[in-house]
């Protein structure tokens, strides 16, 4: 039985754009950040500026990342239903039940659940966790950045963190959260490839083009 698949516009331009800006900035932030924590390359001439450039690129990429996140957060309220913030909280309707089924499915303990067109409940929950980790990186990062000028704007915005944590602890959190994001990104890529193969909905292509292919009976409009 052959059915003609329906082409649905799922990921709007701001969603795709911020996704790829995030990919690039996280990649740059991780590599330069790792270098700042553990300078594995050494300069051999006084005139070189390796750490200087690494820090400059790190801080610039941090600004790019924050702006990208702000655009994405705005789009979570302004965009279509697939971009909505509501996907991060799979608590309504049959979502909790589907979430559990999905987890069991990944552990080979249940049948394959029917995935919707947008984020699945488990994906939504994972992105909530990632968002929390992003926030941790941004807050600890800007707090440490603010040390260069303790009476500046950033210290008044993020300096309260020093009342709770010491600077070495902030550095450790910033470091560990980077690694947590590395695992989550590994899992994200794996699951994306896996679901792409499983559903054959053009999931991998959708983050480039915005379109997915679904069976005609799948509900795509509210």
């Amino acid at each position, binding site marked *: 039985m052959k059915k003609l698949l329906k082409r649905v516009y799922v990921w709007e331009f701001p969603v795709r754009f911020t996704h790829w800006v995030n990919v690039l900035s996280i990649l740059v932030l991780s590599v330069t950040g*790792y270098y700042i*924590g*553990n*300078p594995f*390359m*050494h*300069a*051999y*001439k*006084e*005139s*070189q*500026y*390796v*750490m*200087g450039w*690494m820090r400059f690129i790190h801080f610039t990429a941090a600004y790019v990342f924050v702006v990208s996140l702000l655009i994405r957060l705005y789009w979570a309220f302004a965009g279509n239903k697939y971009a909505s913030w509501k996907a991060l909280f799979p608590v309504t309707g049959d979502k909790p039940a589907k979430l559990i089924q999905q987890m069991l499915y*990944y552990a*080979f303990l249940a049948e394959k659940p029917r995935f919707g067109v947008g984020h699945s409940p488990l994906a939504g929950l994972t992105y909530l966790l990632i968002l929390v980790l992003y926030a941790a990186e941004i807050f600890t990062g800007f707090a440490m950045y603010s*040390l*260069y000028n*303790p*009476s500046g704007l950033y210290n008044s915005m993020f300096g309260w963190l020093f009342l709770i944590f*010491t*600077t*070495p*602890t902030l*550095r*450790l959190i910033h*470091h*560990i959260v*980077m*690694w947590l994001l*590395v*695992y989550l990104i*590994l*899992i994200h890529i*794996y699951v994306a490839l*896996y679901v792409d193969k499983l559903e054959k909905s053009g999931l991998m292509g959708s983050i480039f083009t915005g379109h997915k292919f679904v069976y005609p009976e799948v509900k795509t409009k509210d």
Partner: protein
Amino acid sequence: MSKLNDDPGITDSLAGQGISRRDFIKFCTLMAATLSLPSSFIPKIVEALEKKLKPSLVWLEFQDCAGNTESLLRATKPTVADIILDILSIDYHETIMAPAGKQAEKSLMDVVKNQKGKYIAVVEGSIPMKDGGVYCCVGGRSAIDIAKEVCGNALATISVGSCAAYGGIPAANPNPTGAVGVKDAVPGITLINLPGCPVNVENITATVVHYLTFGTLPATDRLGRPYFAYGERIHDHCERRAHYDAGQFVREWGDEGHRHGWCLYEMGCKGPETFKNCPVVKYNEGTSWPVQAGHGCIGCAEPNFWDTMAPFYKRLPKVPGFGIETTADKIGVGLAAAAAAGLAAHGIARAVKGKDEKEEKGE
């Protein structure tokens, strides 16, 4: 030290000790620079010090090693120390005073009684609070008892050194004596914190000179530290900073980079975490300071540095429960490998399961 009734003026008085007017002006210039004041303030400082108000100063030592006293007295030539002793009337200081026993304690009590609200109290060392404060007693009285009376009646109290400011080494984990800094032991007093292990003596002098010149204590941050000395990071004024930006790091003690005076960042230097003016004022009259001598900063001026800045020779703190030598990056790489292995296993399991299902369906 008795007051001179027939006051010959500070220049004559110092000349008797072999200190010229020029040395005195140089000292006033140093004080203006330490306080981050423009040079137009030098005449004001000169004028204030020439008045020779000689405020009484009592120096209390509790759970300490007299390191800050050493820092004060460790002058290579009789200039700064002599000038300080000429502008202040140090009426009680256990390490350098002439009287002993009951006479000594009497001179302390005389200051408290006769100059109530007019003298400066300096505290060196932490104050133990556990078991009624029995772990530090001077002349039969507990440190907390003395501190309450002396600091409570003072015009202002200066906590010198990290022990007096935050509890310091006696307060390090497990803190058997319940040691705290002056701020926690005697709350509500006029207090200025000058942490450091030991404090740079210029910062004590500059604080007093600020008071003599302007009649107020210098502006302080949320930890009670004056901005002029603790407003900026060691890292941002470090003489090795250019090597940091270039990417030239010491990797091992005595390696080529170490011999060339490169950055000590990889050796666990806590300059990027520590607020103090060490690179500018240095120690022993500007002779040297730890980073100049080839050792990283250990963050001795930061709260509870013995616990929070350890390990001193590593960049990141220990991760609890993973052993002493395990750094966050090793755990990070290990977990990343575990995550990748887990995903691979999932993929293989999925492939095998898929094959089974196909076989069941007879495909």
